[in-house]
């Protein structure tokens, strides 16, 4: 067997090994399940693409000074929250805060991406769409890295009656 053939076979074997260990996009999309919001609450889906750019920068989400969840590259988490205004923030050399108006029965999407900073990259939160979320191959954040309690609003909404 010539060296060229050997190299080709080794590359083919390596490629097969990589492909077999990587879940398919369809499987990933199926894993990106967003449950319906609990009764009387809304949901915010935080997600982060798996790009290597800024991967070392943390996108851990905070609210009212408390950590809500970690958000590693290529992951997402679903946060159930009370209706009203919420202020979510991410920190590095600077803090970026995004206000979100949570409505009962609704799901909103927020993405975290890393911008260029002075000394290091800066995480930034921004509104996103469901299409953005579905377009990416993401995994759910491990439950151990997510705070169990839903966040209370900084400005609670007035009682809402929903017509069924």
């Amino acid at each position: 067997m010539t060296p060229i053939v050997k190299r080709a076979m080794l590359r083919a074997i390596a490629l097969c090994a990589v492909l077999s260990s990587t879940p398919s996009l369809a499987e990933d999309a199926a894993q990106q399940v967003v449950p319906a919001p609990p009764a009387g609450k809304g949901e915010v889906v935080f997600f982060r693409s798996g790009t290597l750019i800024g991967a070392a920068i943390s996108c851990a989400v905070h609210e009212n000074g408390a950590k809500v969840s970690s958000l590693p590259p290529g992951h997402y988490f679903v946060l159930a929250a009370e209706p009203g205004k919420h202020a979510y923030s991410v920190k590095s050399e600077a803090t970026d805060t995004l206000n979100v108006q949570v409505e009962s029965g609704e799901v909103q999407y927020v993405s975290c991406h890393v911008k260029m900073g002075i000394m290091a990259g800066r995480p930034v939160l921004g509104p996103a769409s469901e299409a953005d979320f579905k377009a990416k191959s993401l995994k759910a954040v491990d439950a151990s890295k997510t705070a169990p309690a839903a966040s209370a609003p900084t400005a609670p909404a007035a009682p809402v009656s929903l017509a069924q």
Partner: protein
Amino acid sequence: MSFYAGIARATNAGRGAQNCLHLMMIAAAVAITTSATVAQTATSEALVVPPPIPATTITIPALTPVEVEVLADLSSRTTKTGQIFPIRLAQPITIDGRVVVPAGASGEGEVLDARRSGLGGASGMLMLIAHNLMIDGRALRLRSMHIGQTGEDHSKEVAVSGAVPIVGVFVMFIKGGETQVASGTRAMAKTAEDFVISPVNAAAPKPSTTEGTNQ
């Protein structure tokens, strides 16, 4: 006393009796007439009782879609988070084909978040929400109208629809740099709760119109 005097006395007495009798007859007649009148009045009053008043309110159910119009020029460069801006009902609210709230009702919205474009390619961002519309001096609370504008050129994020999606963020006006929302921009929202309105202020049934454009 003479006979004639006696007769005169008797005559006078008779006249007096006659007068008394007359008076009694008149009194009786008056009494009868009065009672008849009272009875007639009572009967008339009984006949004039107004019919029962039917229900006079209409309820605008929660989550009713409404189209509103922003009445201020907003820019991520100059607008501040928390800034209040005026809005107006752009299309009438109809229930069963009947206009219950005509277009033009005023209200207010709020800048939920505003972010200027910055260093490193950071885009300008503008997020707006609607608070309420004033109907008959009362506030009709609104929800689910978020106008989220980002300055980055993410064409795939554009999702403008006439229907109200389950996602509360509208991403519109995608362009580089600062983000602007011009006065006259329309957006969809929903009523936040049941709202009772008097049909006295409701107009006669009109054919629904679906004009209006979302910019």
